[in-house]
């Protein structure tokens, strides 16, 4: 677990109204157990009040600080809290020190610079010397002492070329390239193609193309099916009319043209398989004509009730199937 040290480093508070730099709090990481290549972060919190501002442009820049230490990044954010400015500075260092044994090294201190042209207490006189003023209102981030640890057991003569051990045996091996895994991509491709195929099937269904096309040549079978559906809704006036119309359309389709009552004999000659149903066919056409072309619908329905229409459709469909 990482623990923090809080150091209240500077507290300048001559007068609350005039205070320039209220506090510099430094949250330090652990100070031991660092190897070469390790990074560490220090958080610095600077609190100022009045007109005093941290001169952020004067903060250190990322880059090498010493031969063994790089400043990787430095970020600062500013926020205001009860009239005080709080600056959060995040410093990230990386260590490049190759230790032979546990060694202590110092991260150098650096000064913080402030813009504070007017932050002098009202009951105080400004220091006449500007150098003195700058010193009085100054703060810095202190040195941090770190303990470095060696990375490996050093046998000092193991690298000399005249010794038995080759350098290539000491060095860690190269990183090898490897093939890119395609399992997940293959999975995605399968899912995408299935989805596309599904969409295609839906479209075919919507447009009733090839597998969803109505089976040709069986108008009576379809009419029978639809009349059964109509019956399910009850024997109301509307559904009786629909049933008649459905059966008429089936006759039309089978004959290839509009079929009227006077055409039944021609129809029989052309389609002899329906001859056994001839009397009922004529009765159907007769009552249909009565139904559609006279005002006496009730009588027509009594002469050829719904049940008979259904039965006729059923028989026609059976004849149609048996001949197919």
């Amino acid at each position: 677990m990482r623990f923090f040290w809080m150091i209240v480093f500077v507290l300048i508070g001559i007068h609350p109204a005039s205070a320039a730099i209220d506090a510099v709090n430094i949250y330090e990481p652990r100070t031991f157990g660092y190897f070469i290549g390790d990074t560490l972060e220090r958080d610095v919190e600077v609190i100022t009040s009045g007109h005093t501002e941290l001169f952020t442009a004067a903060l250190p820049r990322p880059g090498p600080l010493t031969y063994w230490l790089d400043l990787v990044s430095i970020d600062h954010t500013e926020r205001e809290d009860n009239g005080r400015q709080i600056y959060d500075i995040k410093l990230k260092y990386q260590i490049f020190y190759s230790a032979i044994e546990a060694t202590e090294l110092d991260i150098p201190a650096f000064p913080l610079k402030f813009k504070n042209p007017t932050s002098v207490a009202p009951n105080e006189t400004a220091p006449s010397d500007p150098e003195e003023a700058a010193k009085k209102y100054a703060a810095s981030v202190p040195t941090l002492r770190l303990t470095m640890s060696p990375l490996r057991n050093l046998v000092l003569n193991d690298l000399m070329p005249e010794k038995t051990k080759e350098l290539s045996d000491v060095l860690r091996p190269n990183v090898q390239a490897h093939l890119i895994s395609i399992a997940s991509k293959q999975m995605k491709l399968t899912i995408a193609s299935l989805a596309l195929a599904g969409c295609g099937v839906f479209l075919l269904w919507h447009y009733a193309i090839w597998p969803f096309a109505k089976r040709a040549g069986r108008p009576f079978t379809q009419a029978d099916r639809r009349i059964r559906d109509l019956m399910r809704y009850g024997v109301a006036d509307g559904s009786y009319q629909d049933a008649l119309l459905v059966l008429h359309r089936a006759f039309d389709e089978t004959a290839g043209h509009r079929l009227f009552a006077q055409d039944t004999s021609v129809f029989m000659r052309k389609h002899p398989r329906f001859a056994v149903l001839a009397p009922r066919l004529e009765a159907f056409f007769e009552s249909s004509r009565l139904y559609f072309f006279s005002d006496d619908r009730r009588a027509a329905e009594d002469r050829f009730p719904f049940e008979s229409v259904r039965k006729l459709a059923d028989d026609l469909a059976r004849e149609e199937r048996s001949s197919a």
Partner: protein
Amino acid sequence: MHVDRLVARFSEQRRTLLWLLTIACAVWFGYVADDFFRTERANSRIHQLLARRDFTINVRTATPQEILARVNESLRRDQIADAQSTLSLSAERLPPAIHAAALYNIANFRTLLAAEAVRKGDLDGAAALVNLAKTEYRLALKLDPANWDARYNIDVAMRIVRDLPQADNPDKESPDAPKKLWTDLPGIPKGLP
């Protein structure tokens, strides 16, 4: 009731909805298929390079693993300049871990070259090579601090040529050194109050 209305709406708009869905699926399929076949081709190129064939790749479009394979193959053929140009041309597209791995491999090669130079008695050349290698290891570690092999090898390289404290004469010419833009703090008036 709501469901009924929804179903009614769906059957009204069925054609539009179906076409939209189909177009979306087709676009997705195209994208996935393109990705898949690109990866397949990249894998075949990586395979060629791993089989030690001197296979040229397009540095601008190659995948990170291809770049790494190409760099390794160049190093195996002692073409360190090719390896470096391949890497620097594609550096900004590479993820940090792969970039660090390629730099680490180049640095390893240089360290071994340095050992060879020491054996031949060319100590200055060896020192220069090791210093280059150390710079590359450092770059690799900056990109990927979790690369423990790079940590180990920079430690080895530092044993060959020590890093020396330069605190007394900081390297002012180094382009990496932070530039001092202001010699003094602006904002504090100098002179008479």
